[in-house]
């Protein structure tokens, strides 16, 4: 009886002890990896400084608040009304005076050389047109080369004209409709509120993938991979052990970037920080897995870095909805964007920070991230095991 009991209890015990071994080996590999990180201070500095620099550069440079459009006004009417009308363009805050005044003769040349963005011509008869019913056209020449700027300039000009006319009309008659506008989440319509949370996603993805992509490639280049493979550690243990320290590093990076977003760019935080951390963890794990997968595929550190930049930077910036709306893309690219982890995390971080979204809304994105992460990790382990044989 006693012997039987001993036999029975032996099996679960051995499974348990294997589990402890598992953890221990992964932990050992992790501590070896930490030593690698600490021994290379330049890379560590880069890993911490780069996200901060990138936050500042991207945060300030990517900005769609189309202000300061340089508009030259050629006022041929030169009446009180025409001057008042022209002034309303500059008062609006969307347009600024160009550095040099624009005349009818040099308007084309200035547009062509990129010295002004648009030219408004007020022909004679503007003041009379306001009183009478005769048709009158203002001329607006726009440098269309930057389509985005041209669209904004055109919209603003129409809006300013509409407001001006409405003011004239309501001076004599009661308007029929009064519209009050309420902007949810971002009262001042600052585009930094849109872009900076997305930036956190882009930077986290890039740094994480870059960090882990070199780990296994480094072992290959220095010839220590064989040593690692002959050790009793299993592929899972090696992969997990290699990822663990970088999760911590990437998390520090993420918190730094987030801190910058909150302090420097004054982005509001309306949701649950805990939820963001939880989803951030899944996202970082997915990003690190991409790096590990790349690392198993290439042979040198240089190729690993190039590949991880190629795989993370362009998709995370262009195909994720960070700057450009995915809905406006051709269908094929929309399909590709579904494979980009940043796409899901951008929805999550924008939702939590700006709109205070909770898990009932964001679980779809979280599930997608989780699936991507598991598939990538599985592929990495499988590739690594292939190498073993």
């Amino acid at each position: 009886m006693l012997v039987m009991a001993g036999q029975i209890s032996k099996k679960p015990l051995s499974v348990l002890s294997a589990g402890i071994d598992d953890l221990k080996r992964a932990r050992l590999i992790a501590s070896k990896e930490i030593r690698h990180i600490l021994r290379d201070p330049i890379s560590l500095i880069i890993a911490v400084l780069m996200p901060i620099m990138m936050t500042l550069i991207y945060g300030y440079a990517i900005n769609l608040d189309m202000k300061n459009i340089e508009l030259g006004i050629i006022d041929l009417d030169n009446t009180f009304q025409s001057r008042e009308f022209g002034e309303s363009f500059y008062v609006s805050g969307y347009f600024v005076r160009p550095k040099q005044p624009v005349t009818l003769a040099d308007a084309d040349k200035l547009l062509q050389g990129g010295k002004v963005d648009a030219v408004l011509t007020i022909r004679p008869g503007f003041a009379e047109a306001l009183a009478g019913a005769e048709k009158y056209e203002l001329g607006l020449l726009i440098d269309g080369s930057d389509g985005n700027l041209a669209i904004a300039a055109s919209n603003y000009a129409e809006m300013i004209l509409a407001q001006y006319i409405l003011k004239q009309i309501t001076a004599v008659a009661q308007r029929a409709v009064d519209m009050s506008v309420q902007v949810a989440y971002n009262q001042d319509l600052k585009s930094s509120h849109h872009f900076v949370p997305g930036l956190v996603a882009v930077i986290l993805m890039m740094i994480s993938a870059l960090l882990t992509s070199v780990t296994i490639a480094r072992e290959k280049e220095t010839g220590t991979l064989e040593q690692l493979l002959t050790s009793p550690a299993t592929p899972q243990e090696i992969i997990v052990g290699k990822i663990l320290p970088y999760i911590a590093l990437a998390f520090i990076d993420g918190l730094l970037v987030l801190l910058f977003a909150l302090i420097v760019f004054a982005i509001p935080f309306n949701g649950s920080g805990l939820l963001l951390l939880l989803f951030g963890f899944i996202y970082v794990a997915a990003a690190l897995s991409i790096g590990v997968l790349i690392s198993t595929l290439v042979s040198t550190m240089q190729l690993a870095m190039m590949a991880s930049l190629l795989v993370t930077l362009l998709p995370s910036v262009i195909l994720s909805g960070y700057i450009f709306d995915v809905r406006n893309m051709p269908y094929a690219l929309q399909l590709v964007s579904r494979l980009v982890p940043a796409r899901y995390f951008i929805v999550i971080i924008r939702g939590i920070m700006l709109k205070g979204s909770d898990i009932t809304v964001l679980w779809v994105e979280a599930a997608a991230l989780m699936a991507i992460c598991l598939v990538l990790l599985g592929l990495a382990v499988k590739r690594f095991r292939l190498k073993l044989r």
Partner: protein
Amino acid sequence: MLRIVSAIIKKEAIQVLRDPMMLRIIILMPLIQLFVMGYAVNFEVKDIRLAVYDLERSADSRLLQSSFVGNGLFAVRRPEPGIMDIHRGFRENIHDAAVVIQNGFARDIAAGKAGRIGFVVDGANAFSASVAIGYASRVVYHFNRQRTGLDIPLSIREKRLYNPESKTVNFMVPGIAAVLLTMIAMMLTSMAIVRERERGTLEQLMVTPLPVSALIMGKVATFALVGFVELSLCLLIGFTWFRIPFVGSWGLLYFLSFIYLFTPLGIGMLISTLARTQQQAMFFAWFFSVFAMLTGGFFTPISNMPQVVQYLTLLNPLRYYLTIVRGISMKGATIGMLLPETLALAAFGTAMLTISYLKFSKRAD
């Protein structure tokens, strides 16, 4: 001297062509960038999803509703009756904006007062939100004009020059060409020199009777050629596949590109004196490219940036080159119009080349 330089060019060209990975990167990089950016980069705001909450359902409110529906600016979604949680719709990403016509709208109009409506917009995306507000005020403005019967027949006749359909791709392709020329010239230069040093072949070259200047010239000329190939490849795809226009002078474009090239080549050489490994060299080059791209007006206009950053962009050579490439290809700008940019590039090129030559020959001693 010329013979020596051409011999070095030959050596470098063989080295570039022999490495299949490098060749692939040189050809694939413009292709991938062009196709991803050419198709995905689009600032257009279309189909703003608008939820219409008509709580009154009178003749007047329907009329207003139909002017929101019928103008093609909004994609109207009718919410289920009774559900008024507009913000939940924003959070679940069902609609982007909502218009609410309150009960009493028609009564107010009949009484000679202004009927009140509310327009709520998801401001998380500031750009599309401001466009939505613009569209809504236009609808209200037209409605007012109709109802009051008063009319001031003032309108704007607009002409968009150079890119009448406001296609983003017309703007992006010349920009990508400029960025690629910069990146390739800089990366190849910096990495080639560092590689020779890493492998110890730089010393071998140094002990040959070749003068340092010939050595540098030969290397730089090769990568300048590769840069030109890259530029041409990019523009060629732009014209044949994306059908972007080119109205300016090819000769001028290549001449000014030649002047510009000294700057990225000089920066590449400077990097090679700073970096100890190819990895570091690539990292520096890549970091500079991103910086130059973002603050050079590649994606978004410089005038949108804070004043301090705008001053900083004056030190960015790519800024001037982007103005030149876009100006020549899209607007047919002439050298007279681009004189300030040309002079800036000439100054940058001279300075970069002098500094890097001095630093390089110092290290070589």
